[in-house]
Protein backbone atom coordinates (compact mmCIF):
# COMPACT_ATOMS: atom_id res chain seq x y z
CA UNK A 1 0.00 0.00 0.00
CA UNK A 2 1.10 3.50 -0.86
CA UNK A 3 2.77 5.18 2.17
CA UNK A 4 0.99 8.48 1.40
CA UNK A 5 -2.35 6.74 1.90
CA UNK A 6 -1.08 5.18 5.12
CA UNK A 7 -0.16 8.59 6.50
CA UNK A 8 -3.50 10.14 5.49
CA UNK A 9 -5.40 7.22 7.05
CA UNK A 10 -3.38 7.54 10.26
CA UNK A 11 -3.92 11.29 10.58
CA UNK A 12 -7.66 11.10 9.88
CA UNK A 13 -8.10 8.17 12.26
CA UNK A 14 -6.28 9.93 15.11
CA UNK A 15 -8.19 13.18 14.52
CA UNK A 16 -11.45 11.27 14.59
CA UNK A 17 -10.57 9.55 17.85
CA UNK A 18 -9.55 12.88 19.40
CA UNK A 19 -12.98 14.31 18.60
CA UNK A 20 -14.67 11.22 20.04
CA UNK A 21 -12.56 11.68 23.20
CA UNK A 22 -13.54 15.36 23.37
CA UNK A 23 -17.19 14.35 23.10
CA UNK A 24 -16.85 12.06 26.10
CA UNK A 25 -14.92 14.66 28.13
CA UNK A 26 -17.74 17.05 27.27
CA UNK A 27 -20.32 14.61 28.63
CA UNK A 28 -18.41 14.54 31.91
CA UNK A 29 -17.67 18.24 32.32
CA UNK A 30 -20.76 20.08 31.06
CA UNK A 31 -23.53 20.83 33.50
CA UNK A 32 -26.92 19.79 32.17
CA UNK A 33 -28.40 17.41 29.63
CA UNK A 34 -28.89 20.11 27.00
CA UNK A 35 -25.27 21.24 27.08
CA UNK A 36 -24.07 17.65 27.07
CA UNK A 37 -26.12 17.08 23.95
CA UNK A 38 -24.00 19.73 22.23
CA UNK A 39 -20.83 17.75 22.90
CA UNK A 40 -22.38 14.41 21.99
CA UNK A 41 -24.07 15.47 18.78
CA UNK A 42 -21.30 17.59 17.26
CA UNK A 43 -17.92 16.29 18.34
CA UNK A 44 -19.31 12.75 18.34
CA UNK A 45 -20.67 12.99 14.81
CA UNK A 46 -17.49 14.49 13.44
CA UNK A 47 -15.34 11.91 15.24
CA UNK A 48 -17.21 8.88 13.97
CA UNK A 49 -17.57 10.43 10.51
CA UNK A 50 -13.82 11.00 10.26
CA UNK A 51 -13.09 7.42 11.28
CA UNK A 52 -15.42 6.13 8.55
CA UNK A 53 -13.68 8.40 6.03
CA UNK A 54 -10.36 6.87 7.13
CA UNK A 55 -11.84 3.43 6.47
CA UNK A 56 -12.97 4.55 3.00
CA UNK A 57 -9.45 5.78 2.16
CA UNK A 58 -7.87 2.63 3.57
CA UNK A 59 -10.08 0.12 1.76
CA UNK A 60 -9.47 -0.02 -1.98
CA UNK A 61 -12.78 -1.71 -2.66
CA UNK A 62 -15.72 0.15 -4.09
CA UNK A 63 -18.30 -1.67 -1.94
CA UNK A 64 -16.51 -0.79 1.30
CA UNK A 65 -16.13 2.82 0.18
CA UNK A 66 -19.81 3.25 -0.71
CA UNK A 67 -20.84 1.65 2.58
CA UNK A 68 -18.50 3.91 4.56
CA UNK A 69 -19.92 6.98 2.84
CA UNK A 70 -23.47 5.79 3.40
CA UNK A 71 -22.51 5.47 7.07
CA UNK A 72 -21.24 9.06 7.15
CA UNK A 73 -24.42 10.34 5.51
CA UNK A 74 -26.62 8.44 7.95
CA UNK A 75 -24.59 9.76 10.89
CA UNK A 76 -25.12 13.31 9.65
CA UNK A 77 -28.84 12.66 9.21
CA UNK A 78 -29.53 10.83 12.45
CA UNK A 79 -27.26 12.43 15.06
CA UNK A 80 -29.10 15.80 15.05
CA UNK A 81 -32.48 14.06 15.10
CA UNK A 82 -31.45 11.90 18.05
CA UNK A 83 -30.04 14.89 19.96
CA UNK A 84 -33.17 16.89 19.20
CA UNK A 85 -35.47 14.10 20.40
CA UNK A 86 -33.46 13.52 23.58
CA UNK A 87 -33.51 17.24 24.38
CA UNK A 88 -37.25 17.42 23.71
CA UNK A 89 -37.95 14.33 25.79
CA UNK A 90 -35.86 15.71 28.66
CA UNK A 91 -37.78 18.98 28.53
CA UNK A 92 -41.19 17.29 28.42
CA UNK A 93 -40.18 15.06 31.33
CA UNK A 94 -39.65 18.20 33.38
CA UNK A 95 -35.88 18.33 33.41
CA UNK A 96 -35.20 22.08 33.63
CA UNK A 97 -31.98 23.63 32.29
CA UNK A 98 -29.26 24.23 34.89
CA UNK A 99 -29.20 27.34 37.08
CA UNK A 100 -26.74 29.22 34.84
CA UNK A 101 -29.31 29.32 32.07
CA UNK A 102 -30.05 32.94 31.26
CA UNK A 103 -33.25 32.81 29.25
CA UNK A 104 -35.87 30.14 28.72
CA UNK A 105 -38.35 31.22 26.06
CA UNK A 106 -39.84 27.77 25.96
CA UNK A 107 -40.85 27.81 29.60
CA UNK A 108 -42.56 31.16 29.04
CA UNK A 109 -44.72 29.73 26.28
CA UNK A 110 -45.96 26.71 28.22
CA UNK A 111 -46.67 28.34 31.54
Amino acid at each position, binding site marked *: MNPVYEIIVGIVLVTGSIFALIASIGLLRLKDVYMRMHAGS*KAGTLGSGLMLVALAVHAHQIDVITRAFAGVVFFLLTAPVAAHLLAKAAYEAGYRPCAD*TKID*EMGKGSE
Partner: protein
Amino acid sequence: MTSLFLINILLALAWGAVTGSFAEVNLLFGFVLGAGALYIIREQVGTRGYLTRTWQVVSLALLFLYELVLSALRVAGIVLRPKIVLQPGIIAYPLTVDRDFEITMLANLITLTPGTLSVDVSDDRKTLYVHCIDVPEPQATIDDIKNGFERKILEAFR
Protein backbone atom coordinates in the same frame (compact mmCIF):
# COMPACT_ATOMS: atom_id res chain seq x y z
CA MET B 1 -36.60 19.85 -12.50
CA THR B 2 -37.16 16.12 -11.92
CA SER B 3 -37.49 15.35 -15.62
CA LEU B 4 -34.23 17.16 -16.36
CA PHE B 5 -32.56 15.07 -13.68
CA LEU B 6 -33.89 11.91 -15.35
CA ILE B 7 -32.63 13.14 -18.74
CA ASN B 8 -29.25 13.70 -17.15
CA ILE B 9 -29.24 10.10 -15.84
CA LEU B 10 -30.27 8.86 -19.31
CA LEU B 11 -27.39 10.83 -20.83
CA ALA B 12 -25.03 9.21 -18.33
CA LEU B 13 -26.35 5.74 -19.30
CA ALA B 14 -25.99 6.64 -22.98
CA TRP B 15 -22.37 7.63 -22.30
CA GLY B 16 -21.86 4.27 -20.61
CA ALA B 17 -23.35 2.46 -23.62
CA VAL B 18 -21.27 4.41 -26.13
CA THR B 19 -18.00 3.92 -24.27
CA GLY B 20 -18.87 0.30 -23.49
CA SER B 21 -18.17 0.54 -19.75
CA PHE B 22 -20.68 0.81 -16.93
CA ALA B 23 -18.07 1.25 -14.23
CA GLU B 24 -19.10 3.74 -11.51
CA VAL B 25 -16.40 6.25 -12.39
CA ASN B 26 -17.29 6.21 -16.07
CA LEU B 27 -21.00 6.69 -15.34
CA LEU B 28 -20.17 9.58 -13.04
CA PHE B 29 -18.09 11.14 -15.81
CA GLY B 30 -21.02 10.63 -18.20
CA PHE B 31 -23.30 12.38 -15.70
CA VAL B 32 -20.96 15.38 -15.59
CA LEU B 33 -20.77 15.42 -19.40
CA GLY B 34 -24.58 15.26 -19.55
CA ALA B 35 -24.84 18.20 -17.18
CA GLY B 36 -22.43 20.05 -19.47
CA ALA B 37 -24.59 19.25 -22.51
CA LEU B 38 -27.70 20.45 -20.68
CA TYR B 39 -25.80 23.63 -19.79
CA ILE B 40 -25.04 24.30 -23.47
CA ILE B 41 -28.74 24.09 -24.46
CA ARG B 42 -29.90 26.00 -21.37
CA GLU B 43 -31.59 28.78 -23.39
CA GLN B 44 -33.72 26.33 -25.45
CA VAL B 45 -34.97 23.93 -22.75
CA GLY B 46 -34.73 26.14 -19.69
CA THR B 47 -32.03 24.15 -17.91
CA ARG B 48 -30.70 27.18 -16.11
CA GLY B 49 -32.98 26.64 -13.13
CA TYR B 50 -31.94 22.98 -12.86
CA LEU B 51 -28.21 23.71 -12.82
CA THR B 52 -28.31 26.68 -10.44
CA ARG B 53 -30.62 24.71 -8.18
CA THR B 54 -28.29 21.71 -8.19
CA TRP B 55 -25.42 24.03 -7.34
CA GLN B 56 -27.44 25.55 -4.50
CA VAL B 57 -28.19 22.11 -3.06
CA VAL B 58 -24.49 21.18 -3.31
CA SER B 59 -23.42 24.43 -1.66
CA LEU B 60 -25.94 23.79 1.13
CA ALA B 61 -24.39 20.36 1.70
CA LEU B 62 -20.89 21.89 1.76
CA LEU B 63 -22.04 24.57 4.20
CA PHE B 64 -23.46 21.80 6.38
CA LEU B 65 -20.08 20.00 6.51
CA TYR B 66 -18.14 23.23 7.09
CA GLU B 67 -20.40 24.24 9.97
CA LEU B 68 -20.12 20.76 11.49
CA VAL B 69 -16.34 21.02 11.59
CA LEU B 70 -16.52 24.55 13.04
CA SER B 71 -18.98 23.52 15.73
CA ALA B 72 -16.98 20.45 16.74
CA LEU B 73 -13.91 22.67 17.12
CA ARG B 74 -15.91 25.17 19.16
CA VAL B 75 -17.26 22.43 21.43
CA ALA B 76 -13.69 21.14 21.79
CA GLY B 77 -12.57 24.64 22.77
CA ILE B 78 -15.29 24.94 25.39
CA VAL B 79 -14.84 21.45 26.83
CA LEU B 80 -11.07 21.65 27.16
CA ARG B 81 -11.09 25.06 28.88
CA PRO B 82 -9.82 24.70 32.45
CA LYS B 83 -12.83 26.56 33.84
CA ILE B 84 -16.16 26.38 32.06
CA VAL B 85 -18.04 29.67 32.30
CA LEU B 86 -21.06 29.79 30.01
CA GLN B 87 -24.42 31.48 29.68
CA PRO B 88 -26.69 28.85 28.18
CA GLY B 89 -30.30 29.57 27.28
CA ILE B 90 -33.29 28.50 25.23
CA ILE B 91 -34.29 31.09 22.65
CA ALA B 92 -37.39 31.29 20.47
CA TYR B 93 -36.57 31.48 16.79
CA PRO B 94 -39.34 32.80 14.50
CA LEU B 95 -39.52 30.53 11.43
CA THR B 96 -39.85 31.86 7.90
CA VAL B 97 -39.82 28.45 6.22
CA ASP B 98 -43.14 26.69 6.64
CA ARG B 99 -42.95 23.34 4.88
CA ASP B 100 -42.28 20.32 7.09
CA PHE B 101 -39.13 19.10 5.34
CA GLU B 102 -37.66 22.60 5.31
CA ILE B 103 -38.25 22.94 9.05
CA THR B 104 -36.67 19.51 9.58
CA MET B 105 -33.67 20.48 7.53
CA LEU B 106 -33.27 23.83 9.29
CA ALA B 107 -33.56 22.11 12.69
CA ASN B 108 -30.89 19.60 11.68
CA LEU B 109 -28.59 22.33 10.39
CA ILE B 110 -29.06 24.32 13.58
CA THR B 111 -28.19 21.30 15.69
CA LEU B 112 -24.95 20.79 13.80
CA THR B 113 -23.85 24.43 13.99
CA PRO B 114 -21.66 26.00 16.65
CA GLY B 115 -23.33 26.29 20.02
CA THR B 116 -26.94 25.71 18.99
CA LEU B 117 -29.28 22.73 19.38
CA SER B 118 -32.90 22.69 18.31
CA VAL B 119 -35.17 21.44 21.08
CA ASP B 120 -38.74 21.77 19.87
CA VAL B 121 -41.09 23.27 17.31
CA SER B 122 -44.22 25.04 18.52
CA ASP B 123 -47.52 23.43 17.57
CA ASP B 124 -48.37 26.11 15.01
CA ARG B 125 -44.98 25.59 13.28
CA LYS B 126 -44.06 29.26 13.63
CA THR B 127 -41.42 29.05 16.34
CA LEU B 128 -38.40 26.86 16.74
CA TYR B 129 -36.97 26.59 20.25
CA VAL B 130 -33.20 26.53 20.15
CA HIS B 131 -30.88 25.75 23.04
CA CYS B 132 -27.67 27.78 22.88
CA ILE B 133 -24.64 26.73 24.86
CA ASP B 134 -23.45 30.32 25.23
CA VAL B 135 -25.82 33.13 24.37
CA PRO B 136 -24.85 36.59 25.59
CA GLU B 137 -26.82 38.14 22.66
CA PRO B 138 -29.94 36.17 21.66
CA GLN B 139 -30.85 38.53 18.82
CA ALA B 140 -27.41 38.13 17.20
CA THR B 141 -27.84 34.33 17.13
CA ILE B 142 -31.30 34.66 15.58
CA ASP B 143 -29.97 37.03 12.91
CA ASP B 144 -27.11 34.64 12.14
CA ILE B 145 -29.49 31.76 11.45
CA LYS B 146 -31.84 34.00 9.46
CA ASN B 147 -29.10 35.27 7.16
CA GLY B 148 -27.19 31.99 6.90
CA PHE B 149 -29.13 28.74 6.81
CA GLU B 150 -32.68 29.87 6.36
CA ARG B 151 -31.75 31.97 3.32
CA LYS B 152 -29.76 29.07 1.85
CA ILE B 153 -32.68 26.69 2.32
CA LEU B 154 -35.08 29.17 0.74
CA GLU B 155 -32.69 29.59 -2.22
CA ALA B 156 -32.29 25.85 -2.72
CA PHE B 157 -35.90 24.72 -2.40
CA ARG B 158 -38.06 27.66 -3.53
